[in-house]
């Protein structure tokens, strides 16, 4: 099956000196949207959410419920950042107040759910972990996702927020012909650009 990258976005916190939360808030403000739930998200979800907003903000048929789009995330450290934040609420039995709002983000796939909720995507949502960014695995997994007869588009993203790194590389892959062919070479080229 011939697939194409219809569009993509790449966001990186430019400096380790910039606080992650501040960086993400500044991108959110620049979008001029009103979505208070954004501030409840962990950084991983915020990154994925912002990239998806950039991809879909001008889509004229946006918010029309659809089942033909899959959201597939990939990263290295799963939800370790959120895990650490939750661990802080239970570490000390004398100051033990487990936070449900922190616990819910201790799963890497929550970001795919946040994007599905925002956009009314009823299609597949999945999350895969690998030791490093692996264009070959992303290429194969996205290709395989089209084996689901319903799937016509895949929103695929490498999303990492941990240990001073904040980066999201998100692309919309479709069966419909467009300029950039979907290939391992192209994935690497865009990612390293």
């Amino acid at each position, binding site marked *: 099956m011939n697939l194409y990258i219809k569009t993509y976005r790449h966001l990186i916190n430019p400096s380790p000196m910039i606080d992650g939360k501040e960086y993400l808030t500044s991108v959110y403000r620049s979008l001029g949207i009103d979505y*208070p739930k954004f*501030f409840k998200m962990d950084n991983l979800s915020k990154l994925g959410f912002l990239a998806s907003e950039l991809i879909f903000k001008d889509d004229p048929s946006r918010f029309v419920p659809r089942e033909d789009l899959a959201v597939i995330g990939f990263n290295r450290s799963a939800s370790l950042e959120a895990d650490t934040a939750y661990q802080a609420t239970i570490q000390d039995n004398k100051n033990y*107040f*487990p*936070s*449900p*709002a922190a616990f819910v983000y201790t799963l890497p796939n929550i970001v795919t759910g946040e994007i599905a909720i925002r956009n009314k995507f009823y299609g597949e949502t999945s999350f895969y972990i690998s030791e490093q960014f692996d264009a070959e695995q992303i290429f194969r997994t996205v290709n395989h996702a089209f084996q689901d007869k319903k799937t016509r588009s895949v929103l695929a993203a490498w999303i990492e927020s941990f240990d001073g790194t904040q980066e999201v590389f998100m692309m919309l892959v479709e069966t419909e012909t467009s300029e950039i062919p979907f290939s391992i070479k192209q994935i690497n080229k865009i990612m390293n650009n």
Partner: protein
Amino acid sequence: MDELILKLKGEIIEVLNLEDLQPEDIADDAPLFGEGLGLDSIDALELIVLLEKNYGIKLTDPAQGREIFQSIRVLADYIQANRKK
């Protein structure tokens, strides 16, 4: 009581990450869930943690929350009557 209401508003804004709200934006009698502040089920659970952590009030049944979390005023009344710290 007014002092507790103001303090509660600040605490709720902080723990529920209501980033774009100021305490004066929350009316004392406005519903917290549904139409009001638009809080959801996780927020309700987080308010239960707040009650325990800041006021020593332990709710075991989440259904109790529905009564108590009607509005800031109802919540403040409940805290006033039941607080252990």
